[in-house]
Structures are given as structure tokens and as C-alpha cells.
């Protein structure tokens, strides 16, 4: 497992989710701002892509919400706990 790449991808997910939250807050007070909406949708798309890519390579990020369970195995128990990941 390439832990450097894993950390890099995880960081990217954190960055994108932060941007999404900040745009979320802006849109709360500017719900009709088209430019902000476009930015939000782009970030949201990139975020989902990054999450899917991460989960495909390193296992589920959260216990539910993004990835369906595999047919024959519950992969959530496969990944190391956060404190076991060697970045």
C-alpha cells in the first residue's frame, strides 16, 4: 500500500470538503448566487470523485453513506483504524 499516495488523496478529500462547507455557508446567505452555485457543484463533483477513488483503493472512509457494501465481504473492517495508518 502506497501510504504517501493515500495521505495525499485523503488530504485532497479534506480540502474539497472544506471548500464545500465554506461555499455552503456562503450560499446560506446568498442562495441565488449563480457563480457560487457553479463553484459548489464543481467542488461537490470533484469531492465525490476523490472519495470514490479513495474508497476503491483504500477501503471505505465511513461506515455508510458513499459506497455500497460488496456482495461477499464487509470491507469496513478491512481498513486500518485511523491511528494505524502510517502516513
Amino acid at each position, binding site marked *: 500500500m502506497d501510504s504517501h499516495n493515500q495521505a495525499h488523496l485523503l488530504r485532497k478529500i479534506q480540502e474539497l470538503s472544506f471548500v464545500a462547507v*465554506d461555499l455552503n455557508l*456562503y450560499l446560506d446567505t446568498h442562495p441565488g448566487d449563480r457563480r457560487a452555485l457553479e463553484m459548489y457543484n464543481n467542488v461537490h463533483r470533484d469531492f465525490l470523485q476523490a472519495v470514490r477513488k479513495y474508497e476503491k483503493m483504500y477501503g471505505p472512509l465511513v461506515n455508510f453513506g458513499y459506497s455500497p457494501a460488496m456482495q461477499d465481504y464487509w470491507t469496513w473492517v478491512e481498513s486500518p483504524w485511523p491511528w494505524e495508518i502510517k502516513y
Partner: protein
Amino acid sequence: MYRDNNQNPQQGNTQAVSYIDQNQELGYYPPQGMELARAYVPIQRLGKVYPPAKALETGTLFPELYRPYHY
């Protein structure tokens, strides 16, 4: 908006807030013709934003909200 549906949350406890009696005249402070301070916040205008990595580091996506303010 904060809405309190629970009118009597702690029965038996001391009432900390005194409510208005509907028949009672309101004794306002400050006196008539004066107003307490009012706060305002100008609405934010969207300009250029930080790239995602910089935003996460800085704690905001918006340069106009980062202190010290440059305006």
C-alpha cells in the same frame, strides 16, 4: 430563529426570566427617543477564492474574510 416550544422547562426551579404581564405597562430602558446600539454586518461579495489547499490551511475559502483585512 430560536424558538422555545418548551414553555416550562424546569418546573419547581427559580424563574430566571421575568415575563411580561399583558396588562402591565412596559417600563422600557433606555428612555423614549433613545435606542440601544445596533450591530450590522455588510453582505459579503464573492470575489476570487483561495485554491482548496490554501483554503484548508487558512481556515477560509474567502480572502475577504481573512484577517488582517486588506480593505
